[in-house]
C-alpha cells in the first residue's frame, strides 16, 4: 500500500551540527538482547524442551531430637539419580546450618557501623557474649559399601569426590551422619530453630534445613554453587523421603509426608477424632485438645516415640514438634480429590488459631488450586511459631497470637491469616513449580504474593490486602533511584527486599491481569505456566515466554520496563484544545491543499477546524456544532446521503484534541475518563502500543455530544502512576492531607 501522505524532502540547515546515529532503544523491541537463547532443554514457547531433564534425590533418614540439650542427630542415605546427559565427577551437598557457624562468612560481609545507642542486652550480645555455636558437625560420609568418601566443605556447600564419575542415567547411594545445636530463633535468628516458653519451660521446635541436602544440577547453572548467605533461599531437586523421627513420648509432631504409624503415636481417642476429621469438610475437628496439650506441658517424658513419614516427589522436608501442641484438622474438597488441612498451635495461640488457622489453610488450597492445578500433596499444615513466616513442603510456620492480655487486634488477625495464606501458598511456588530461589527471589515470592492477593480478595472483597493493588507500589517506585534495583537482580543484592521481590512483581502481575491482558487471557497463560513447570525447574525466561506464548499478547515491553528496569509510570495530560467548526478558513490554514490518492489534489470547499486559542476564531463560530450551520456540510449530506443513511449519522457537538506526555519511562496504556457537564462519564482505553514509535507524546481527538467538563487519566489508579498532579484537566489540586489537618 502507498502512503497517502507524501513528504517533501526536508531541507536541513547545513550549519547545524550533525547528530550522531543511535542503536535501537525502542521499548517494544523484542528481548533477544536479554533472554537466553532457546534450546532443546527449554523452548522459545517457554515450555520444557524435548531434551529437558532433571535430577532426583531420594532420602532415607533417622532423626532424633534431644529436647533437653536442644540438639538434632541424624543419619541419612541419599540415592542420587543422574538423569543428565553428562557424567558427574563430584556431587555438591548443601549445608545450610553452617551459615550459623561461629566462623561463618555471612557475618563478615555485613556492613557495620558503630551504633550510637544500644540497650544493655544488645551491647552484651554484640560485644561480650559468646556467639551461638551453630553449624553441622559431620561425623562421616560413606559410600554404599561403608567406605569413607573424600569430601571438602566450603562454607555452606560440601563437595563429595567420586572415585569414578557418576555416569549419565546411573545412580549412586551414600550415607552421612551428623548433628548440630538447634538455635533459639527468637534470639539468634533463623528460618527454623525453637521458641522457648519461660512460663512452663517448654520448647516449640520448627526444624528445617536440618540435613545435608543435594544441590540442584541442571542445564542452566550446572551445579547450583552459590553459597547460602541468608537472603537467597533454596534450589533443591525432587525426590522421595522416608523419615523416622524420634522425640520425647509426650510430644505431638507433624512433618512433610504421610504419617505411616498413626496408630502407634496417637491415643485411641485421638485416632478416632482424626478419622472424623478426614470426613469433616465444614470445620476443623480438634484431634489433640487444649486440655491434653496443657497436661502434657506440665511433664517432661524420658520415654521416646518414633514418628514415621513417607513423602513422594517433594523437594525438601520439615518437622515441627512440641509437647505444647493442640492439633486440629479438616478435609478439603478439590476438583478431583480431597486433602487434609491441619494446624498445630500452643494454648497461647487460642482462641485465634482454633478459629482461623485450619479454615484459612483450606481456603488457600481451594483458591490456589483453582488458579493452577489441584494441590497434589495429601495435606497442608500450619504451625504457630511467633515471629515466623516460612515455608516447606506440606508444612509452614506462621506468626500471630493474641497478646499477653488475650487481646486480638484486627491487624494481628489479618496478619496471621495473610501469613498463613502466603506460606501455605508457597507449596505451589516454589515447592512444586520449583524455581531457583537462590538466584531469583521474585520467581516464588512475587508469584506467590500475587496468588496471595487473589486468595485474600476471594476470601472477602474488603480484605485489607497490603500488596497487589497498583496504587500501593507507588511509594516504592517513586523513591530515589539510589534505593532501587530491577526485579531481575540477584536475591542477595536487593536493598528493599519486600518491595522489590514481593510487592512489585505481584503488582505487575495484577496490572497485567486487570488492565493489560484481561482476566481470561491472563488466567489461561498463568495456569499454563504452572502446569508446564509443576515438579520441574523453571527460569525467568520460561515464565516470560509462556505468558506471551499462551496469550498472543506481546509483553516484551512490560518485562523490559517492570522487571528489567527501575522505570516508573508517569503519564500526564499535556494540553487540551477545544476546536470549533467553521466554513471560513482561518489564516494559518488558508493555503492548505489536501491530497487525495497519489496524484489528485482537492481544492475545496473545505470544513475548517479552528482551535479555541486561534486569533482567527470568529466569535460567532464559538458554539457547539450544528451541521445546519455549516452550509458546505449540510449541502454535502443532502446531496450524497439517502434519508436512511442520514438517520444513522452521529451528531457530535464538541471537538477536542488532547495531548498526552510521558515523563515516566515505564509504558502503560492510556486510561482516559471524560466527565461531561451533566456529570455522566465515558471511559477510553488506548492500548500501550500507542507509544510504539518511541514517541514521548501522543494526542487523541475526541468528538462528543456533550460538553466535556473534566478529563482524568487513570481514574481508578490501575497503572501505578507515581504523579497524579498531571492526571487531570482542568488541573485539579490533589487534596492535601496537610490542608485537611489544618497544616
Amino acid at each position: 500500500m502507498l502512503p497517502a501522505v507524501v513528504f517533501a524532502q526536508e531541507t536541513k540547515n547545513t550549519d547545524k551540527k550533525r547528530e550522531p546515529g543511535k542503536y535501537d532503544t525502542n521499548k517494544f523491541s523484542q528481548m533477544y538482547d536479554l533472554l537466553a537463547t532457546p534450546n532443546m532443554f527449554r523452548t522459545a514457547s517457554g515450555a520444557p524442551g524435548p531434551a529437558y531433564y532433571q535430577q532426583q534425590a531420594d532420602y532415607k533418614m533417622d532423626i532424633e531430637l534431644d529436647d533437653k540439650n536442644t540438639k538434632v542427630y541424624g543419619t541419612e542415605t541419599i540415592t542420587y539419580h543422574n538423569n543428565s546427559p553428562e557424567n558427574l565427577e563430584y556431587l555438591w551437598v548443601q549445608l545450610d546450618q553452617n551459615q550459623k557457624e561461629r566462623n561463618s562468612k555471612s557475618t563478615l560481609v555485613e556492613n557495620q557501623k558503630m551504633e550510637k545507642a544500644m540497650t544493655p542486652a544488645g551491647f552484651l550480645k554484640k560485644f561480650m557474649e559468646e556467639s551461638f555455636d551453630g553449624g553441622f558437625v559431620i561425623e562421616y560420609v560413606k559410600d554404599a559399601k561403608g567406605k569413607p568418601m573424600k569430601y571438602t566443605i566450603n562454607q555452606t556447600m560440601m563437595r563429595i569426590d567420586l572415585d569414578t564419575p557418576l555416569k549419565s542415567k546411573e545412580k549412586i547411594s551414600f550415607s552421612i551422619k551428623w548433628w548440630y545445636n538447634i538455635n533459639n530463633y527468637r534470639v539468634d535468628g533463623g528460618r527454623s530453630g525453637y521458641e522457648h516458653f519461660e512460663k512452663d519451660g517448654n520448647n516449640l521446635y520448627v526444624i528445617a534445613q536440618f540435613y545435608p541436602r543435594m544441590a540442584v544440577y541442571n542445564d542452566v547453572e550446572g551445579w547450583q554453587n552459590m553459597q547460602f548467605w541468608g537472603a537467597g533461599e533454596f534450589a533443591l531437586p525432587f525426590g522421595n523421603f522416608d523419615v523416622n523421627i524420634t522425640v520425647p513420648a509426650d510430644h505431638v509432631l507433624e512433618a512433610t509426608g504421610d504419617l505411616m504409624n498413626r496408630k502407634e503415636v496417637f491415643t485411641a481417642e485421638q485416632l478416632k477424632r482424626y478419622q472424623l476429621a478426614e470426613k469433616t469438610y465444614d470445620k476443623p475437628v480438634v484431634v489433640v485438645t487444649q486440655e491434653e496439650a496443657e497436661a502434657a506441658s506440665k511433664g517432661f517424658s524420658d520415654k521416646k516415640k518414633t514418628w514415621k513419614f513417607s513423602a513422594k516427589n517433594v523437594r525438601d522436608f520439615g518437622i515441627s514438634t512440641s509437647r505444647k501442641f493442640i492439633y486440629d484438622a479438616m478435609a478439603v474438597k478439590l476438583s478431583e480429590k480431597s486433602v487434609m488441612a491441619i494446624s498445630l498451635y500452643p494454648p497461647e495461640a487460642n482462641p485465634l488459631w482454633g478459629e482461623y488457622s485450619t479454615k484459612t489453610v483450606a481456603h488457600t488450597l481451594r483458591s490456589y488450586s483453582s488458579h493452577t492445578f489441584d494441590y497434589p500433596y495429601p495435606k497442608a499444615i500450619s504451625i504457630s511459631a511467633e515471629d515466623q513466616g516460612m515455608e516447606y513442603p506440606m508444612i509452614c510456620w506462621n506468626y500471630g497470637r493474641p497478646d499477653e492480655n488475650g487481646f486480638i487486634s484486627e491487624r494481628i488477625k489479618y496478619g496471621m491469616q495473610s501469613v498463613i495464606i502466603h506460606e501455605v501458598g508457597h507449596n505451589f511456588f516454589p515447592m512444586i513449580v520449583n524455581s531457583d530461589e537462590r538466584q531469583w527471589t521474585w520467581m516464588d515470592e512475587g508469584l506467590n504474593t500475587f496468588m496471595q492477593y487473589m486468595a485474600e480478595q476471594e476470601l472477602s472483597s474488603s480484605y485489607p490486602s497490603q500488596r497487589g493493588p497498583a496504587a500501593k507500589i507507588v511509594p516504592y517506585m517513586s523513591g530515589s533511584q539510589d534505593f532501587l534495583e530491577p526485579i531481575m537482580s540477584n536475591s542477595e543484592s536487593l536493598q528493599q527486599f519486600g518491595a522489590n521481590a514481593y510487592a512489585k512483581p505481584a503488582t505487575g502481575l495484577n496490572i497485567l491481569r486487570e488492565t493489560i491482558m484481561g482476566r481470561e487471557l491472563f488466567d489461561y497463560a498463568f495456569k499454563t505456566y504452572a502446569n508446564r513447570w509443576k515438579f520441574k525447574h523453571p527460569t525467568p525466561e520460561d515464565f516470560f515466554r509462556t505468558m506471551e506464548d499462551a496469550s498472543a499478547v506481546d509483553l516484551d515491553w512490560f518485562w523490559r520496563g517492570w522487571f528489567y528496569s527501575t522505570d516508573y509510570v508517569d503519564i500526564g495530560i499535556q494540553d487540551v484544545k477545544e476546536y470549533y467548526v467553521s466554513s471560513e478558513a482561518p489564516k494559518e490554514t488558508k493555503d492548505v491543499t489536501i491530497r487525495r490518492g497519489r496524484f489528485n489534489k482537492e481544492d475545496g470547499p473545505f470544513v475548517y477546524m479552528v482551535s479555541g486559542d486561534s486569533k482567527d476564531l470568529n466569535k460567532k463560530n464559538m458554539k457547539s456544532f450544528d451541521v445546519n450551520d455549516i452550509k458546505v456540510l449540510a449541502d454535502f449530506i443532502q446531496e450524497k446521503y439517502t434519508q436512511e443513511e442520514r438517520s444513522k449519522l452521529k451528531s457530535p457537538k464538541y471537538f477536542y484534541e488532547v495531548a498526552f506526555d510521558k515523563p515516566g519511562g515505564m509504558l502503560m496504556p492510556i486510561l482516559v475518563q471524560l466527565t461531561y457537564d451533566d456529570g455522566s462519564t465515558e471511559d477510553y482505553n488506548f492500548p500501550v502500543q500507542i507509544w510504539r514509535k518511541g514517541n514521548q507524546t501522543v494526542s487523541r481527538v475526541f468528538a462528543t455530544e456533550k460538553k466535556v467538563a473534566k478529563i482524568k487519566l487513570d481514574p481508578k489508579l490501575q497503572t501505578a502512576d507515581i504523579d497524579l498532579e498531571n492526571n487531570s484537566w482542568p488541573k485539579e489540586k490533589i487534596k492535601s492531607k496537610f490542608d485537611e489537618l489544618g497544616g
Partner: protein
Amino acid sequence: MKKIIQTISLLFLFVILTSVSLHKFYVSVNQLDYVPQKKAIEITSRLFIDDIDLALEKKFNKKIYLGTSKELKESKDYLQKYFQEKFSIKVDDQEKEIHFLGKEVEDNVLICYFTIKNIEKVSSLEIKDTILMELYDQQHIFHTNIAGNKQSLLLTSGKMRGVLNY
C-alpha cells in the same frame, strides 16, 4: 510474651525475616517537600505501626494499642512526645519546631504528617531521625523536594544525622 529483639545486625534480620510475607524490614519512608505558597515544609512519614506501638509501650510503660479498637485516646500526645525526642530538623543551621499534625493508618503502616512553618527559603537541611533505633537496626529514607531540587538521604544507627544542600 515480650519480644526480645534487641539491637540486631542487619544480616541477622535478613536471616529471620526474608521469607516472611510481612514487612520486617526496618525501613521508614519519608517525603519532605517545601511548599512556597504556604512557606512551609511538609513531611509525610510512613512507619510500621507495630514497631511504633512497641516503641511507645517501652518508653511509657503502657500499652497504647495504636491502630486498634483499643487505642488510647491520648495516643497522639504519646506520639508527639516520642517524636519530639527522636526527630529534629535544622533549616539553614537553625533548629525548627516540627508540628505533629496528625496520623492515619493504612494497613500496617502509620502515616504521620508534620509541618514546619514560616520558612522563607531552604538552602540546607539537617535531619536527625532516631525513631525506632532504640529497638531495631532501623533505617530512615528521606526523599526531599525543595523547589524541584530532589535529593535523598539515608539515616541509619551509624549515621543518625544527615545534611542536604540545595
